[in-house]
Every structure is written in structure tokens, then in C-alpha cells.
């Protein structure tokens, strides 16, 4: 897919993924406490990595007491139409994580070819291309780059896909939507 280029190559990506993937497919969703614990540990270390790497523009933190449910924040990168805007996302991790992908949705409504009105994201690494080598940080960075480089071939929002060619118009519509949304969301 075209936006693959936006995904940062993961240094840990090389290690025997096929084997792990295979095992992940067989592993039935049995949430036994030991596994839950190890998943929690993994998430904790991912959090730590995320906190210390200091990537600008992406951030996430467990929501409340549950480490399986996070809130993420993405800032539109400079040079794209999303520059200066920030989007909230929700990330839910299954107990089989990292062998199953997390569910990631936009909380802030996002006008984007690959995001539908409910905030669902069409991104291959969140579906069939998922690998246990990905982590929260790479997911967030992928989504950040997806904002600037949409895949217009399989749009969830065909209006946005059609509008993409006219960046100025696109930005206008998008900003209007964003303001409406934040106006609605304003508590």
C-alpha cells in the first residue's frame, strides 16, 4: 500500500515474525492471569519507551486505572493540511496483545479519506498487516503520517478522497469540521 512508506521501520521488526505471527493465530483468546500480567508488563514498558523517546506530536497514556485502554494524542505534522491541529484517539488493547492488534479510533472527529464518521481508521497495520513487532509508538507515528499521506484508493470517506486533490478547499472543509467538532466537544 502506498502509505507503507510512512510507517517507520521498526528496529525490532526483523526478528522471527512469521513464527510469532503463526503462533498468534493459533493462540485462542484465553485471558489467563499470567498472560494478562505479561501483557500489562509489555504495555508498561511501551509506555516508558513512549515517554522517554520524546517524539514530538505523538503521545499516549493509559486512561484511568486500566492499562489496556489508552488515550492518544496526535498533532498534525507541519507541511500538511493538518498542521497545528491535534486529534485525540482511543486505543484498546486485547488481552492477546501484541499478537493481536489494538483497536484504534479517532475520538476527535477527523475529516480524512481513511477515517469514517465514527472515527474508525482504515490502516493495514491495524488489520491484516499487524505484527507483534509494532508498538504504540509506531502505531501513532503511522497514523500521524497517514494524515498527511492518505490512501485514496480505498477511502472510507469518499468525499474527502475526492477533495484531496484540492488541498486548499480540503483544508477549509476539514477546518470547519474540526471546529464544529471541537465546539461540540467543548465541555
Amino acid at each position, binding site marked *: 500500500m502506498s502509505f507503507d512508506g510512512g510507517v517507520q521501520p521498526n528496529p525490532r521488526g526483523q526478528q522471527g515474525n512469521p513464527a510469532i505471527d503463526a503462533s498468534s493465530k493459533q493462540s485462542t483468546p484465553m485471558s489467563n492471569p499470567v498472560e494478562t500480567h505479561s501483557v500489562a508488563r509489555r504495555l508498561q514498558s511501551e509506555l516508558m519507551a513512549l515517554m522517554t523517546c520524546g517524539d514530538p506530536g505523538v*503521545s499516549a497514556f493509559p486512561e484511568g486505572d486500566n492499562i489496556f485502554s*489508552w*488515550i492518544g494524542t496526535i498533532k498534525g505534522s507541519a507541511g500538511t493540511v493538518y498542521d497545528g491541529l491535534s486529534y485525540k484517539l482511543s486505543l484498546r488493547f486485547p488481552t492477546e496483545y501484541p499478537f493481536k492488534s489494538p483497536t484504534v479510533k479517532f475520538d476527535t472527529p477527523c475529516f480524512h479519506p481513511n477515517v469514517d464518521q465514527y472515527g474508525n481508521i482504515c490502516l493495514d497495520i491495524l488489520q491484516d498487516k499487524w505484527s507483534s513487532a509494532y508498538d504504540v509508538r509506531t502505531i501513532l507515528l503511522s497514523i500521524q503520517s497517514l494524515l498527511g499521506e492518505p490512501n485514496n484508493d480505498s477511502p472510507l470517506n469518499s468525499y474527502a478522497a475526492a477533495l484531496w486533490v484540492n488541498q486548499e478547499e480540503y483544508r477549509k472543509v476539514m477546518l470547519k469540521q474540526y471546529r464544529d467538532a471541537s465546539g461540540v466537544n467543548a465541555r
Partner: protein
Amino acid sequence: MDCEQDSPSLVSLSQARVTEIAQAWSVFCAIASKMPSRHQPESTFFSSSITVLCRHGLRSLVADYFLNQLQAIFQDHCTTSFWKRFDGYSGFEDIDKESLQLNNWIQSILPQALQDVCYVKISQQESIDLLAHSLRACESSLDQSKRDQVAANLATSDDLLRRYQTSVTALLLTSAPKYFSEILNLYFKARLEDFSRAARKQINVSEMTNDSDQYWDMGKASQGNERENDDLESVLSGWTDLDITDMVGSTWVTEVAKLICNLQQLGFSAMTEEACACAVYSMLKDKIHSVATKRYEKPVLAPIRRWIKVIPLQFLHGVLDSASPITQDCAFSYELPSPLASSRFENSISRKVASERITRWHLRLEFFTYETLGNLRINELFDIIVDYPESLPAIEDLRHCLANTGHHTKLVESFRTALRHRLLTAGAATTDILLQYISTIKALRTMDHTGVFLEAVGEPIREYLRSRKDTIRCIVTMLTEDTGASGSTALGGVGESLLEELSRGATVIDNVDSEDEGVADDEDAWTAAERWEPDPVEADPSRTSKSRRSMDIIGMLVGIYGSKELFVNEYRIMLAEKLLSKSDYDIDREIRTLELLKLRFGENSMHSCEIMLKDIADSKRINSNIKANTVATSPRANKMQLQAFLGSSAAQNTPSVTSISRTADPGSRLAAFVARARGVFSQSEQPPGSSSNANEEPVEKDLSLEAVNATIISSLFWPPFQVENIKIPDVVDNLLEDYAQRYHTLKTPRKLQWKKHLGIVKLELQFEDRAAQFMVSPMHASIIMLFEDHASWAATDLASALGVPVSTLRRRIMLWVNQGVLLESLGDKPGELYYTIIENIGDGGSRNGVATNDTAVPLLGEDDGESAVASMEDQLQQEMNVYESYVLGMLTNFDALPLDRIHNMLKMFVSDPPYDKSLQQLQGFLSGLVAEEKLEVRDGLYRRRQQ
């Protein structure tokens, strides 16, 4: 008369008989009332009247009446007058009990009064004897059958005497004033003092004739200022069994013995003994206090015990021995025993009784000594330990005392109190506390090898030390400090002893190891088992006696914190500091210390320290390698080394990213380097106004690599450094670059990364009228170098030229201001400070004590006690900084959070390192972030500040 009723056959008595009885009775009464009298004719009347009365069966009546009569007479004539004599005592009550006047008064009154009253008593006793005699006479005239009857129920003369004695004693005791016992006390005290004075004199005399006595010499040597000691010493000098009479003279003995005998006759024996004991005890107590108080450098127990045998025991022997027979015999005999009674009672029983009494007294006195001395020493223990090891004899004494009295608990309590009041206060320096703790350990070890009481006493100290921040640092300093290097002698002394301790500890450990191997030997095991002793009951059962015994001083000091990790870490930091501040590469001492520490703490924990030392050694080699290259390649080398300048810059290298072979293995050394630069250049200060351009390119300014000495470190193994960025002058910077380049060629693929703010710079400043040498930090050197071009700088310009905040600059520049090199003044712009170089001391006028030319004054770290290595506190700060990103991350995703929510989330999600701070610590940290304008707080909610 009621007596007539008593007679059973009264009615049957004829008139003549009655008259006869009445006559006899009146005669008897008349004589009895005049008793005691020695008129012989009266005694005949007396006995005849008694005979008459006895014949009529009035014998018991006669005896009773007679005794009553005597008692009444005694009471009327003696008791009151006897006690009256002592009335004068109340006049003395206000004045000192020790006064000579009082003593003289007692001396004059007491024996005489006693003598008089005894005289009365004796004459009365004689009359009783007379009565008894008469009674006996009439008994013999009775016929046999009656005599049996009489003997069965009538009193003998002994009986009568005993009754008399009882009544007299009762009379005296009931009427005795309270102060009588005091008088007795004082009397015996005075006598005891007489005795000891006489004894001392006697002994001195005997020694005069016996010059060979060594104690005498000792005593003589210390004579004058230590009179009491002298006294003791002389007493313990070969005491021969001098007879008491020889010592004090027979009159004294006679007098005292007589007095005691009188007292006992009057029934005061209990009081006498008490007074005697009291006198002896108080003298012993005074003796102990005067000899032992505040003197710890000589053993006192043994001399005092010897002294007991000489003075008090001899006194008691003299007094009680002569008295003891009296108690048995004197009371029942009419005549006074001879003063030297003992010689009269040669029979073995009395001897035995006497010696038994003396033995008992001896034991009592010794125990009293243990108790008194023990208590004294326990109360003084704190001071004793302060004086350790000079006070070792005192500790040894205390050990003996405790062994006999078992007052260990008291010791622990009293010492703990003393510690709380005198040592564990905010005013005491940590070093002092540690010194005292070490002395305590040593002292209590001597006293109690099981270590149980040490444990009890040491606990409060340890607890207190734990609460002090600089404890570890102090311990490490003490361990590693050079004996001579330390300014304070006390610290130096202990530093030495601790270092010694360390080396001793090493050998001990060796021994322990070998012992473990040798335990297989059955015989050794057997003797070890036989030597086993149970722990005292006070011991803490949760710890084994072995752990208690095996801990040595270092172990205990390190054990204050429960683990060696903290200790090792602190040592690492201090070692780093020390190594970085060295201007040469001499590390022999450190290597030795490290080896010793390794023996104690194990190779592993000292691993990084070892690498640090190795870095220094390597630096030396590399440094000379680079220098050698310089000589070969650079024609500028050795040029114009007019003024030495030890510039030090620190650098750190990161492995070059391309050097795959190195980075692939994360365990490989990420070599980091600190360079110590020695530069040669002169710094000429031009007077303001003159053309400074001329000085811009002079050869003098040439810095050669020769001037740089680098310390190259492996940063992974060194503690983190303080981070500070400064711009150093280009001249030096280029030089460092050059150095780094050479290093790179020599050690490809490694690169040098300078830590430019670390190191030492030796520089000489030349002014118009003077020159001065300094050893300062690179920051200071950079500051002053900037003044080479401009004589005056504004603070802000200077700060930007150096790349540091103004506040830092102002803090650092104070050194130069204080040295009279720069002048701080307010400029035209408000709030702006200007610094101007003082070229002539005369016109600068601010200072006159500028450093002289000859010596380079090390001024490093003088200003704000800063050190190259991040201290534990800074590390804590950095630890906290880890959480900053978490907090920021949190607040990016949540708009606003209250403090406790942040706290909980950190607790929940931060695992490496686990979040272990308190809510207060977090709050302090967050307010720091607020102050840095990273966060803002509104209504108790923290949120990120919008840019």
C-alpha cells in the same frame, strides 16, 4: 501495801510477824532507794532485811521492787543528764558536718558522757550483785525441799542482770534524740580518718626506710598534683601486716575500744556497728570518687581493693575485733575488758568468729566498691568513650565491676540517655558522631565481647546517623582520607585508624576463610564447642551470636544503612571526584584502598571503580602517546613555555555511529573521555585605552598540545556528571579539537567528546603592576580570558559569550571579584552589571590582599562547593526528572489532572524505576515544573501550559 495481798497466808500471820515484815520492808526500801551505795553497814542491814522478806516468801517482790527502783533512779539521774550533754549538737546543725569544731566537740563530749553513764550503770550492777548475793545467802539458809522450789521459779543473778540490762537499754533507746546516731557517725568517721592518716604516715615512714620499693618511686613522681593517687600508690606499696597499735598508738586504740565497749554495755551495739559501717562506706565512697572521677587513664579498681584491705579493713579489725568479744562477754561481766581485749580471748572460737566477720566485711566492702565505681563509671561512660583509647583502664575497671554487679541494663539505659542528650543533637558534626560511634564500638567490645550491649547502645546512634544526609560521605571520607591530607587532626587520626581497620579487616576475612576450611579438625571443633557461652538474657533472639561477634567496625559502619550498595555508590562518586581533581595520574593510593575495599565488598561491587582507576592509568598512557606524536609532528611544540597553564577540559566521546564492530555489543566500552588540558599561554592584561590589538597574535599566546593533559573515561562506569555547557575560548577549543583528532587517529574508531566544563586550569595573570597564579575551573578561566580583549564587560554580554545564564555567570564571577581581579559596578543601563579588570591595585582600590606571584592558589570549588560529579542529591533530582516526561505525557492526553490522580497514575504505570516518591515530593516536583512554565495549575488541576 498491796504486797500483803500477794501473800497466801496473810490472814494467818500474827501481828508480830506483820510488824517484822513491815520493818524489814521499810529498811529494804530505804536502802534500795539509796542504791547504789557501798556503805558496808547498810549492806548488812540490807541483806538481813532481805533475809526476813525472803523468809516470808516475798522474794520475787523484793527483786522486782529493787529493779524498778534502780530503773527509776537511772532514769531520773542518768538518762536525762546523759542526753542533755548532747544538746549542744543542735547548735552545730547549721554548720558543716565535717567541721573540725564539731568533731572536737564530739570528741570531748561523747567518750566522757558514755564513761559517766557507764559508771552509774556499773555501780547499779554491783548493787544488783549485792542483791543477788543476799538472795543466794538466804536461799542457802532454806531447807533442801524449799530450795528446790525456789531454784525452780526464782531468778538467778544472771537473770536479774539481764532484766536490768534490758530495761536500761530500753530507757536509753526510747529517750535517745534523733541526732545521736549522727553523732556516732561523725565520731567514727573522725576516728577512721585519724586511723587512715596515721596509717599513711606509718607507711610513709616504713617506706622511707625501704627505698627499694618501686611503688614509692611512682608515687613520688606523681606527687604534688595527684595527692590522692599518691596516697593510693603508697598504700599499695608492700603493705606489711603492721599491728594496729603500732600504727596509731595505744592511746587511740584504748580510747576507741573503751568507747565501743561502753556503747555496747549501754545496748547501742547495733547503732555502733551501723555508725561504723556508715563511716567506712562513706570514706570508701569518697575515696572512690576522689580517685576515679574524671580520671580514666589509670586503673583504679585494683588499687582501691588493695586500699580496702589496708585501711578500712584494718580499722574494722581493730574496732570490731576488740568489740566482738565484748558483745559476748562484756555484757554479762562486771569488769571492763581490757582495751586490747582480743589478746585476752585467745580461744580459737572467738578468733574464728572475728576472722569470719572480717571476711564478711571484706566482701561487703568489695561489692560496695564494685557498685560505687561501676555506677560512677556508668555515669561517666560517655566521657570515657570520648577519651578512648586513653581511657582503656577505666573501661577495664568497668568491665570488672559489671561482671560483679550485673548492672548492664543500667549501663545501656544511662548511656543511651547520655547519647541522646550529648551526641545525637543537631549541633554535633556527623564526623564527631561517627568518631564517637567508632570509639563506642571499640570500648564496648572490650567490655562485652558478645556485642549484645553494643547492639542495644548502638541502635539509637545508627538510627540517628541514618537520618543524616552526609553520613555515608563522612564514612567514605574517613575510610579513604589520607592521614596527613586532612586538616583536622582528629579526623586524620581516625581516618588512619579506619584505613588500618580496613586492612586489618582484610586479614580477618582471610582468617575466617581458612578457618572454615580447617573446621574439619575435630579437636578444634571440640575446643570451639567447649568455649561456647550462651548469650546474655538481654540478647535479641532474632540475631545469632555469631553475626554479632563477627561484625567489625567497618561492617558496623556500613551496616548503618543495612546494605553496602549505598556505600559503594557513594565511594564511586567520591572516587570519581578525587580522580578528576587530580592534576597528575598518580593513583597508587586509590588502588591500594580499592584493593582493600574489594576484599571487603567483593570484586563485583567494586567493578566500576576498578574501571575508573584503569581509565586513569590508560589516560596517562594515551596522553603521553599523543604528546609523543606532537613532538614528532608539530614544530610548534615546546615553544615559549613561559607560563604554565594547566587547563583542564573534560570531554566525553561517543562511539562513532559507523563503528559497527563496537556498537554491536552493548557491553563494550562506550568510551568517554575527560581531558585534562595543560596549556601554555600567557595572559597579558592591557590597561584600558592602550591598543590591545598588539597582543592578539603574539607567540606567547600559542598553546601547544603539550599543555593539555586529558583524562579519558569510560562514561558507562563513571557516575553521571554535572551537565553544563560553556563556550571556552577558541584558542583552547582548537587545541582540544586537535587533541581529539589525534586521539581519533590513534584509537579509531573511537572519538573524544570533551566535557569542557570539567577539569582544572592553571593560569597566570599579568597585570600592569603584578602577576598572579591561579588554579581554577575552566569556567573561571574562560571568564577571565574574555577580559583579555575587553577590559570591561556587561554581565549579559559576558554570559552570552560564555553560553551560560546570567545567574550562573554572576555566581561564578564572584571568585574573580573576591580575588580583586575584577571590579563589579552598576552600569548606565538599569539592572545591568559591569565587570572591569583591575589593572593597578592602587586605582582599583577594592582589595589589597591579592595572591602573590609565587604560589598557584587552588581555588577550585571554593565558591559554591560544587563538584564535578553529580551528587546523590542531584541524582535524586534526575530520577525525578524521569517522571517529568510521564507527567507531560499524561497531561497531553488528559486536559487537566489533580495531584492525587497524577500520583496514582505514576504509581500504577511507572515501573522502571518504580515510582516510590511521596505525594509531597511529587507536589514539590510539580511546582518546580510550574515554575519552569511547563505546567500551570488552576483550581488544584494541573494542565500543560499552552505555548
